[in-house]
């Protein structure tokens, strides 16, 4: 899909607000959004959310042959999946320039800064090494994508444990997690990334910009730091002219953030560790899903119930509480039933019944009458019929179509019945 | 056997010529490079092309020569893409046929427009163009055809509007085209020249030079339309054309300005040599020196 540009007035508004120190989510210019980190039930998975940006990272390991140039070093591969689900500007199945930049930066931060000891991933020099694969999937993009992805990847790597192996003279023995506890990766340090937006030729600094803000800013600079006060990566994201003082200032901001976030990551991983060793079943990602179920139009704590097959219906109750899957229903009344409408339907159904009776058609099954919600008994019987005699389906269809023709002709003159013939016709078409 | 591998030579043979003669036409004190301040007292001057304002100072954005016109300061660069002025005659190639206009490549930074209403159709001039004409546009001028046109207008973004409302402009049929950097084309009033060797030359301001046995205005039929079929060109004229084309290439390679005098001088001085030899480095550099010397001599004589 084409990128929707930010409109001129929107851009002007955002810039004006930023210049007077205000942001639309009530943050200060140098405030970060809330970071939520969750590790999954499966080892080596993590979801990180910064505000609305959500990223999932999953780490897996495989035994592979090493490259001839580095026979005793393991391999870490990073793969990013940037789909239109995250941001409709992304291309489907192809990594655009943004995706390539993201992969390259993640590789720079995680692989090139050597935070993982790759030599410990070697099983047999020259023959077998562990190939660790980090899959980063962007679920939702609202700015600071790299920050979120980096954090998720780092947490997943911290959380991940590879199977334990022993070297036998002729083969390698890999133990499952029930035989020998899996071994965590050897991580030297944790690089944490910060995106710092810049405005007015670098005079103003906007921290952790959202997607809309980022489109209005002059440019941004990406700094990755770790707890040991080292800068792991420094990358100018977009065209911008800076001074060295501004770069140093950004680095200092990123440094303090890195120290805070490192603590968070360690906490999360340690807590999960504790839970697992206490043999408590980890919740995993279930805690991120809201305990609400969306139904048509409104969000309410309701349950979806399959068509109820009961012999003693309670008509009054049904009028209030409608099952969402009902067969052979009046399409107009689905989901919009209120007390007032029930009366309307009742009157129409009476009229139709009158017509039906006057015509006196044979084999007018109950399905021919207007299927209003109030006529519960009929519907149940119908459900019973259908459920019990599924082979009779075809016959029923035919009878229904036959019957439908007569009432249509008769009711053309009456305006009130206008709804009905259309419905019946519609039903006829549906059945056909 | 031993080989000697080196980088590019210190000064390329082409440049040796430009740097050798007394180049007093370029004032060294006025040469600027991008980012250099152009004047000492910026308040007195207005900034023109090739400059920008930085912290209140007028700074050059091009590498060229500073020119002052009263209170206007501008930087003129030597090499630049053809910009286009009203009245310039250009030799362009059609790249696209659109509704009611043709898009032509004039070696400028944007394609030029040739509207349907600005062409002289065969069989009548100045008649209103109707729907039929629109459909027949590609019959008249297809993709890849070469035309000679005059610049009627320059739009604000630099797009040129061309027209061929004259018999001397129009489709170019038989000839040789030579692409020359536009800064080598010397400004002159006449663009169409008939050489005494039985052929003609169109020096387009955009850098395309067209060598042809006959100019468009001479190939007209009775009703005013141009002759459609290709005419057989006799061999001696063809050889002359190739020689002229080689001379123009020589002038281009040695950074000698291209105008009618230089072409004729080059042609005459190349007579002792074979056409094939003209493209070899030894002959061409020797010849170029001689041509340059002769032209400078003539210039001094005129003064």
């Amino acid at each position, binding site marked *: 899909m084409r990128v929707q540009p930010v409109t001129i007035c929107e851009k002007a508004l955002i810039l004006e607000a930023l210049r007077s120190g205000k942001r639309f989510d009530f943050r200060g210019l140098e405030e970060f959004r809330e970071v939520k980190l969750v590790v999954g039930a499966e080892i080596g998975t993590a979801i990180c959310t910064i505000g609305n940006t959500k990223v999932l990272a999953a780490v897996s390991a495989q035994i592979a042959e090493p490259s001839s140039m580095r026979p005793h070093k393991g391999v870490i591969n990073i793969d990013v999946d940037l789909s239109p689900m995250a941001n409709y500007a992304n291309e489907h199945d192809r990594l655009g320039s943004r995706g390539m930049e993201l992969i390259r930066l993640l590789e720079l931060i995680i692989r090139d800064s050597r935070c993982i000891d790759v030599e410990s991933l070697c099983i047999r020099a020259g023959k077998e090494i562990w190939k660790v694969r980090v899959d980063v999937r962007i679920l939702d993009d609202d700015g600071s994508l790299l920050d979120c992805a980096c954090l998720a990847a780092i947490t997943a790597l911290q959380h991940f444990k590879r199977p334990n192996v022993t070297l036998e003279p002729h083969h390698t023995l890999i133990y499952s997690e029930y035989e020998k506890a899996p071994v965590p990766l050897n991580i030297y340090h944790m690089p944490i990334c910060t995106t710092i937006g810049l405005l007015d030729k670098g005079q103003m600094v906007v921290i952790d910009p959202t997607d809309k803000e980022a489109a209005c800013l002059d440019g941004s600079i990406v700094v990755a730091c770790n707890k040991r006060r080292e800068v792991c990566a420094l990358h100018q994201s977009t065209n911008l002219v800076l001074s*060295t003082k501004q770069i140093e200032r950004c680095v200092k901001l990123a440094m303090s953030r890195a120290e805070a976030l490192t603590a968070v990551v360690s906490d999360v991983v340690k807590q999960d560790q504790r839970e697992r060793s206490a043999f408590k079943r980890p919740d995993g990602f279930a805690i991120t899903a809201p305990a609400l179920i969306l139904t048509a139009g409104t969000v309410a704590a309701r349950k979806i119930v399959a068509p109820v097959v009961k012999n003693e219906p309670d008509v009054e109750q049904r009028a209030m509480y409608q099952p969402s899957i009902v067969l052979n229903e009046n399409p107009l009344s689905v989901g919009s039933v209120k007390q007032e409408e029930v009366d309307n339907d009742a009157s129409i159904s009476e009229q139709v019944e009158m017509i039906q009776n006057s015509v006196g058609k044979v084999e007018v099954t109950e399905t021919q009458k207007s299927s209003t919600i109030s006529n519960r008994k009929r519907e149940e019987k119908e459900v019973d019929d259908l459920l019990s005699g599924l082979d009779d389906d075809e016959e029923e269809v035919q009878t229904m179509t036959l019957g439908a023709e007569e009432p249509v002709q008769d009711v053309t003159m009456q305006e009130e019945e206008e709804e009905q013939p259309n419905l019946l016709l519609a039903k006829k078409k549906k059945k056909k | 056997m031993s080989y000697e591998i080196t980088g590019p030579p210190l000064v390329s043979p082409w440049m040796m010529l430009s740097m050798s003669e007394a180049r007093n036409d370029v004032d060294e004190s006025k040469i600027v490079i991008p980012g250099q301040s152009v004047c000492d007292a910026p308040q007195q001057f207005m900034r023109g092309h090739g400059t920008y304002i930085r912290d209140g100072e007028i700074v050059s*954005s091009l590498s060229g020569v500073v020119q002052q016109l009263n209170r206007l300061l501008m930087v003129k660069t030597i090499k630049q893409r053809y910009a286009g002025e009203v009245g310039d005659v250009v030799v362009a190639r059609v790249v696209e046929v659109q509704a009611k206009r043709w898009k032509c490549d004039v070696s400028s930074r944007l394609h030029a427009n040739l509207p349907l209403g600005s062409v002289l159709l065969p069989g009548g001039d100045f008649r209103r163009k109707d729907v039929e004409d629109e459909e027949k546009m590609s019959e008249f001028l297809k993709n890849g055809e070469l035309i000679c046109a005059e610049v009627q207008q320059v739009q604000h973004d630099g797009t040129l509007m061309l027209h061929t409302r004259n018999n001397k402009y129009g489709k170019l049929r038989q000839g040789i085209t030579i692409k020359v950097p536009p800064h080598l084309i010397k400004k002159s009033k006449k663009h169409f020249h008939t050489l005494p060797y039985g052929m003609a030359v169109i020096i387009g301001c955009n850098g395309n030079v067209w060598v042809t046995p006959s100019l468009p205005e001479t190939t007209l039929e009775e009703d005013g339309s141009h002759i459609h079929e290709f005419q057989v060109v006799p061999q001696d004229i063809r050889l002359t054309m190739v020689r002229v084309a080689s001379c123009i290439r020589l002038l281009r390679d040695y950074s000698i300005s291209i105008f009618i005098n230089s072409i004729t001088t080059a042609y005459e001085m190349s007579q002792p040599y074979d056409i094939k030899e003209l493209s070899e480095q030894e002959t061409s550099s020797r010849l170029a020196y001689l041509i340059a010397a002769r032209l400078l001599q003539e210039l001094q004589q005129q003064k």
Partner: protein
Amino acid sequence: MSIISEHGFRLDGRRPAQIRNVNTRLGLNRNAEGSSYLEHGNTKVLCAVYGPYEGKASKRLEDRCAIVCQYSTTTFSGLERKNRPRGDRKSTEMSRLLEKAFESVILTESFPRSQIDIFCEVIQGDGSNLAACVNATSLALADAGIPMKGIASAATCGIVEGNPIVDLTSREETDLLPRVTLATICGRDEVVLVELHNRLHIDHLSVVMEAAKATCADVYECLAVVAQQHLKACAPILGN
């Protein structure tokens, strides 16, 4: 083998703050609008600039010029033969960095809807490849007569035991040495490109930045002289 010997000399005999010899030729490619050849010691780079011209409709921007860069290294440019001269991740990243850097240097607002193509070819890579490409491109752009804010100059600097070393060669570009490639306009404090490799401690950051800035200013002096000298050679004989 240490980077700086006990007497304070580097592997090729330079001092820590000394840059390599800069050798340039402009106007080599007759077809391109601007072209240059640059040598930083043994690092040799060719650059060609085409444009501004009317490019593809997909790349067209309504208010400014689109800049397309291609960074490619020949298969024989490094220590080991490279199978793919361009299109791999590293080259794509370098191309992007060059594009972004030159978008801030070139006055793109002067030509809307046009496109400028920049092609860089590293013939021999002996360290500071990106910096050499930036320098070569600046010269080629000056040769092509494209308006810029100034000539951008770049340099790669590292730090060893607290001492900054400038203009790194490939033997000094190891996995352990942190290095910063910095590009500034006209040697001033206007940074258009900053790229860091390996980890750098925050206390060393300002030291490296200062050293890199000073080196960029030195390189700029060399490039400025070259650009000025070339102008004389460009002018046509008997021209306007």
